[in-house]
C-alpha cells in the first residue's frame, strides 16, 4: 500500500482566536488577559474561564517559560510526521502562567538533553501565508 500523503494540520483561526494568530504571524505572543482576575489565560476565549467574567484585553507576553513536561514521539500517528520521528512534544509553562501544548525544537530528541523545568523561549515557524506556529527552544546559557 502506498504511504498516505497527508500534510500536517494547519490551524484555522476563529473569530475568538484571530488576535492570537495575528500576533504569531508578526512573531509575537499575545494572550488574553482577564482584568478582574489580573491574570492571563489560554486558550483564547471572549471570557475568562476562571471567573467567567467578560472583561478581557489582549497583552503581549514575554515568550519565555519552562518545560512543564515533555514526551518524545517515536511513532507518527499522522502521516504528516512520518519523516520526522522522533520529535518532541511538550507543555510549556509561560512566565505569565498559562501552559501551551507545543513542540520543542533546536534540541536532541533525547531524555539526556531535555528535562522538566528547563528554561525555553518561543520561536515561530512559518507554516502558511497566514499561520506562524509558536514552538519553543532551550534558552542558551
Amino acid at each position, binding site marked *: 500500500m502506498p504511504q498516505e500523503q497527508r500534510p500536517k*494540520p494547519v*490551524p484555522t483561526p476563529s473569530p475568538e482566536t484571530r488576535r492570537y494568530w495575528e500576533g504569531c504571524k508578526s512573531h509575537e505572543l499575545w494572550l488574553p488577559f482577564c482584568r478582574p482576575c489580573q491574570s492571563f489565560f489560554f486558550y483564547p476565549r471572549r471570557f475568562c474561564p476562571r471567573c467567567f467574567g467578560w472583561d478581557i484585553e489582549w497583552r503581549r507576553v514575554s515568550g519565555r517559560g519552562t518545560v512543564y513536561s515533555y*514526551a518524545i514521539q517515536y511513532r507518527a500517528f499522522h502521516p504528516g510526521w512520518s519523516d520526522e520521528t522522533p520529535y518532541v512534544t511538550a*507543555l510549556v509553562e509561560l512566565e505569565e502562567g498559562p501552559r501551551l*501544548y507545543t513542540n520543542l525544537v533546536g534540541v536532541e530528541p533525547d531524555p539526556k538533553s531535555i528535562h522538566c523545568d528547563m528554561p525555553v523561549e518561543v520561536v515561530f515557524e512559518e507554516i502558511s501565508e497566514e499561520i506562524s506556529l509558536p514552538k519553543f527552544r532551550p534558552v542558551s546559557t
Partner: protein
Amino acid sequence: MPSGSLSNSDRRRLSGKVAIVGADESDEIGIVAHKSTLELHAEAARNALADAGIPMSEVDGIFTAGPGWSPSLQIAEYLGIRPRYTDSTTVGGSSFVIHVEHAAAAIEAGLIDVALITHGQSGHSDRRRPGAGRPPLDPWFPAAQFEMPYHVGGPATVYALACMRHMHQFGTTHEQLAEIAVATRKWAMLNPKAMMRDPITIDDVLSSRWITYPFHLLDCCLVTDAGGAVVVTSARRAKGCRKQPVLVLGSGEATTHQTIASMPDLTDTPASISGPLAFQMAGVRPQEIDVTEVYDSFTYTALVTLEALGFCKKGEGGPFVSGGRTAPGGDFPLNTNGGGLSYTHPGMYGIFLLIEAVRQLRGECGDRQVSGARLACVNGTGGTLSSTGTLILGAE
C-alpha cells in the same frame, strides 16, 4: 471539591439502593473482524440480561457511549426497544462507570426499573474497515487549533506528558511502571478470555520499543474488539434476580478538563475528587477494599490512580506497586482480569472493570479468584486523564 452546595448526606441516601445484577462480555472478544460494533453490543446485552435473568422487554433505561452522534438512539433501535430513559454520556473510557451512578439516580428517583449499560467497539478492526475511524474535528475547536498542529496522535502522546512530570516530580521509574505491566500479565495468564497470556518480565517491558517516551510498547494497553454490558436495578428487585446482587455502595464522578494543556495538575487525576466522594458515600476506607479494578490505558494510568484514590500517598505509587504487590499472591490484587494491558481494550474499557468486579464479588473467577472478596473499588478514567467515575461495590 466539586462546585455546588450538596453535602455528603445527600449522596449517602443513594448508598446500597441499587445493585448490578447482570454482567458479561460479547461472545467473542479480542480480534473479532467478522462482527460489527452493534453486534458486539447486542451479544453483550443478551449475555448480561441472561446473567441477570431479566428479559429485554423489561429494560426501560438504556445507557451507552457509542457509536456515532446519538449513541443511545442507535443502540435502542438496534436492540428493538423503546426506552423511557436514555443516557449517552460519553466522556471516554470512564463513561460506563459513570453510567452506573446515573442509572442509580434514575432508578432511585422512580423513573426506571431496569437499566442496561452496553458497549461494543472494534478498536482493532475499525482500522481495517472502509470509512471507519474518528470523524474530523471542528477546525475552530481548541484541540484543532492548539494541539493538532503539534501532533496529538492519540492517548499515548498526551498521557506520556503526565507520566513524565510524575517521574520528574516524584522520582517514579521505568522499572516501577513495568511492575504493573508484569503483574497485570500474571493475572491475564489466569484468565482464559485474556488476549495476552505469555509471561513477561520487567526486562521485557524495558526492552520493548518506545512508542512515546517515557512509554515502552508494553506500558501501553491493547487495541482489540469487544463488547460488554451490565444490568442495574433496585436493591429490592435485585433479590429476585438469578444471581447474587452486587450492591452499589458508593459512587463518584469528576471532570476537570478536556485538552491536556488545561489539566490543573499533570500528576493527579480527577479520581482524587471522585474517589473520596465514593468512599465517603459508602462509609468505607481504602484499606478495607479487597479487590481493585482501575483503568490501565497505560501502566502510569493505574499507578497514578492508586495515589488519587488514596491507596497510597501522592507520589508514592512507584514504591507501592513494587515487589509484585499487585500480582496474584501479592497483598493488593489489582486488575485481576488482566486489564486493558493484557486482557482486552477495544478503545473505551470501563465496562470491563465493572464486569470483573462483579465476578470477583460473586466468587466466579476460578483460578484468579481473590479469596473472600467482599468489597471492590472500580475506577474508570476517560479522555486525557480528564474524567473519572469511581464505584465502591459490595457483595450482599
